């Protein structure tokens, strides 16, 4: 990679005044360069922690007294549900930053997060169903947390649908930011209302919160898997963000140099 300070993009940005230097690190080219080595590192962490977490979860943690072996699904279910919630907030945050400061990279990262967040929400629902069937006899339970995750999936899909429907990039980023921010304000309200609704209706006594009493080893397994999911999320989101960066910046000189380099530099993921 050529030295960053010499290229016209950053020089022009720096020339516009000291304020923009703060966001220099966010310049697409710099982001692309840094994530070039950061993504493989995240993959190593993700796979390493996943192996450790699953090992602890399956081979060290004991069988649950009440649920038997099916409880072992929590090692993917709980991290997935947690990730889907956290990623929505992170997405709304970066989208908001991108809107408020006109920061290109922030908007790109926000867009890159959405499919991964939706994926985790789907996984939380799928694994939740597969956990519910042997434990409580039904594939779906209108439990407060599962239902909120379902609604969260709808929020993700709405965001993705909106940003994809708008052709103008700036309008798309800003509209997405507004929707994501409104959505994140609503998530606690939605969760509260669903919990309210759940407790009022007889028959909905099944609760995902009645998880098995956690042995320490179970907790360890879950925490390891959570770290693995975070690392996975970083890796995938950065990969997608890199793709979007190239798409948006294809007319700029640094991309031109990048794609015209011979095979050794150009085609790395």
């Amino acid at each position, binding site marked *: 990679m050529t030295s960053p300070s010499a290229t016209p993009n950053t020089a022009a940005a720096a020339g516009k005044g000291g304020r923009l230097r703060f966001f220099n690190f966010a310049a697409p080219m710099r982001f692309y360069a840094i994530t070039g080595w950061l993504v493989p590192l995240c993959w190593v962490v993700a796979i390493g922690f996943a192996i450790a977490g699953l090992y602890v979860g399956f081979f060290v943690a004991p069988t649950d007294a009440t649920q038997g072996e099916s409880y072992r699904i929590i090692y993917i279910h709980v991290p997935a549900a947690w990730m889907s919630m956290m990623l929505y907030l992170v997405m709304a945050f970066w989208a908001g930053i991108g809107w408020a400061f006109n920061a290109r990279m922030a908007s790109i990262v926000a867009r890159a997060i959405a499919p991964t967040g939706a994926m985790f929400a789907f996984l939380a629902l799928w694994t939740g169903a597969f956990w519910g069937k042997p434990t409580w006899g039904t594939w779906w339970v209108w439990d407060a947390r599962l239902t909120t995750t379902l*609604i969260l999936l*709808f*929020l993700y*899909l*709405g965001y993705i*649908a*909106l940003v994809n*429907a*708008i052709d103008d990039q*700036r*309008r798309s980023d*800003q*509209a997405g930011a*507004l*929707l994501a921010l*409104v*959505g994140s*304000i*609503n998530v606690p*309200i*939605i969760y*509260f*209302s*669903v919990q*309210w*609704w759940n407790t*009022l209706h007889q028959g909905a006594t099944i609760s995902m919160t009645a998880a098995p009493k956690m042995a320490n080893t179970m907790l360890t397994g879950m925490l390891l898997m959570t770290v693995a999911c975070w690392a996975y999320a970083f890796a995938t989101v950065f990969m997608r963000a890199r793709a979007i960066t190239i798409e948006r910046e294809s007319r700029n000189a640094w991309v031109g140099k990048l794609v015209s380099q011979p095979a050794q530099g150009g085609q790395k993921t």
Partner: protein
Amino acid sequence: MTQSAARASFAAVFGSVLVRDLTLAWRRRTDALLPLAFFVVAISLFPLGVGPEPGMLRDMAPGVVWVCALLASMLSVGSLFAADLADGSLEQMLLAPQSAIALTLAKCAAHWILSGVPLIATAPLIGLLFGMSGPALLALVAGLLLGTPILSLLGALGAALTLGLRSSGMLLILIVLPLAIPTLIFGAGAVGTIDAGMSASGHFSLLGALLISTAMGAPWAIAAALRISTE
């Protein structure tokens, strides 16, 4: 700009937009009644689909009425800003902050008067079709009274975000429905609670709180969305 002049321009924009929208709707009365027609037709589908057993219908009624109210509201809100966008007045009104808020409030008020109020008026009749008791009907109407303005506000936000897009109707519904779920839960839940013989004051307080917070926050968000969509 002096305080009174600022207030005057807010009132002026609010008044003129509201009057204009209502006048336009009056000129096309049949179009304005479409949401109501949809509401009634959609509700009638449920007994046809699930069977006429009275107990089940009575239990289902609040949920069915609320869901159909939601859908009817969403279907009619898509064209809220289209006319103003087309004749260029939208951009004019967005120039000053007070007039932008006045515009959004007037639009929401017009939408509520045209689609929310007919729904509220028709709900008791629908409730009778479903065999609801007197107190339950009252709770239904009270809930709709509080909830339909919320739906108008949320719908306007969706309309502003999807202004001018292809298939904006479906997109609007997908965006707004998740946000409307708490309103649905508290509104329908209130009727169920009354039916079970308990007090629904909690539900109504929550609905009221939702209405107030939405009325305070949504106009700004809608104005911001309009600016985003017209820049």
